[in-house]
């Protein structure tokens, strides 16, 4: 397995939406390297014919009756929002300005 570079950590931080500082990037680069080298040992036993297990209880298509129930109280929900306008969540600009 490859070792992880500072640039890669910066790219991961961007993907994960973490505005890491320069010091944090260095710190995590070395720590992630150590952890990844330790966990990479699993490849010693993972042959091609072993099925992957995503979940302990195999279930598919779990349905329930389609019964109408009350939704969450709007005032309760909006009272916890960082910003609200006209009974809606208010968010920062999503599109770049022209």
């Amino acid at each position: 397995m490859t070792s992880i570079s500072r640039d890669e950590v910066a790219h991961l931080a961007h993907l994960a939406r973490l505005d890491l500082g320069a010091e944090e990037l260095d710190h995590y680069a070395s720590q992630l390297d150590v952890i990844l080298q330790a966990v990479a040992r699993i490849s010693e036993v993972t042959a091609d014919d072993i099925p992957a297990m995503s979940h302990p209880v195999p279930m598919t298509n779990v349905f329930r009756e389609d019964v109408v129930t009350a939704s969450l109280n709007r005032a309760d929900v909006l009272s916890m929002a960082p910003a609200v306008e006209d009974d809606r969540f208010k968010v920062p600009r999503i599109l770049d300005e022209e």
Partner: protein
Amino acid sequence: MTEDLTRQSAAVLAAAIAAKEVSAQEVATAHLERIAAVDGVVHAFLHISSDSAMAQAKRVDEKIAAGTEVGPLAGVPLALKDVLAMHGEPTTAGSRILQGWKPPYDSTVVARLRAADIVILGKTNMDEFAMGSSTEHSAYGPTHNPWDLTRIPGGSGGGSAAALAAFEAPLAIGTDTGGSIRQPAAVTGTVGVKPTYGAVSRYGQIALASSLDQPGPCARSVLDTALLHAAIAGHDPMDSTSLNAAVPDVVAAARRADIRGMRIGVVKELSGDGYQAGVSQRYHEALSILEDLGATIIEVSCPHFEYALGAYYLILPSEASSNLARFDGMRYGLRTGDDGANSVEQVMSLTREQGFGPEVKRRIMLGTYALSSGYYEAYYGQAQKVRTLITSDFNAAFANVDVLVSPTAPTTAFKLGEKLDDPLAMYLNDVATIPVNLAGICAMSLPVGLAPEDQLPVGLQIMAPAMADERLYLAGGALEAALVDRWGHLLIEEVPSL
């Protein structure tokens, strides 16, 4: 009742409340006073819900006065891990990003506790988003182990375990993703059970790794743990992974506590080197007690367990990085940098940078890496194969034995700060508890004595197949009764006074 109400078991308190020997309000008051007296040094709680606790206790007293039927734990106080949503009460998961958040709904666990007339005293401290083995990763400062305040109470559910050991509550709820109920129980001399995956609803539990997470009961005795287990388990349509099956009769098993003829497997790979001397000693003593009680001890091999830690630290961060994407500062929780000029993505990045602590960021990045294009098959895909191998090891073992045992943790409680700067050393605490979560089976930790070298509690882990949770209580109940015979009391009675 004239004795100290905070020293009683949940079963004794419930019986006294039902018999009107003491009121639920008196019991709640005694525990709130105990918390006020000792939590300054223990820091088991992040939030005390005095008003709602006293209101619930009053309702219970009114029900009993009116002759209304109440549950077997009616009026008994409980400490709730802060990872479970409780309507109108602060719920932070130990994170800065959820500071001040009050959920607009109850988790199913909380709804069942309320329905069982249990009195929730408050929310307990934990490693941020349940990532850790020491509570040192809480954004609100660590919890201290009541056995030695300079030591960790385990994690992530260290607050719940410490609340029990400090006699702040006789019952607590934890959640266990890789050992977060069992390891804190081991290092605090208390009992904790990770039920079979899907036995207790995850609805309203702030998700860490959805295929591993499982809420469960914690208490100071096996019977109290069973009573709480029965109160919270059962099918829930709000959790699509909830088991639609009858809950095993864990209370009857805890009361029967008979292991004559039981085949107990010793996992060779979890009982060799790497354990503190006193942990090994107490573990082997417990094995001979189990044998004296009529069980047969059989050594079994689980050859792939040595790869469990590696698989876990790929699967967990992968699922966590995905689950924690919801904390984006838009609908609830912290929002930082919204100055009108920053874009939504900049605000998200600034919010998450400020709101998450170092261990959470580390695991988010690890998971993002393991799931990223080009590495997915090499890491996450391979880890899922190891999961199959671990499950096969368990299936092969359970073909010949009824339960498996191991020490719960390699050492007794370590010093606060000792492993904080070495993530890998911290991860090694979970080596014996992780296989259970990967396979989705159930396990208990219960105290088996103090390590002679440091006078700190040692835990024994009992593991049983999926949906055979009652076997944990049969074996745990029998061992606990034998140890109480020997000591004259539960181990927790030896905890130093605070």
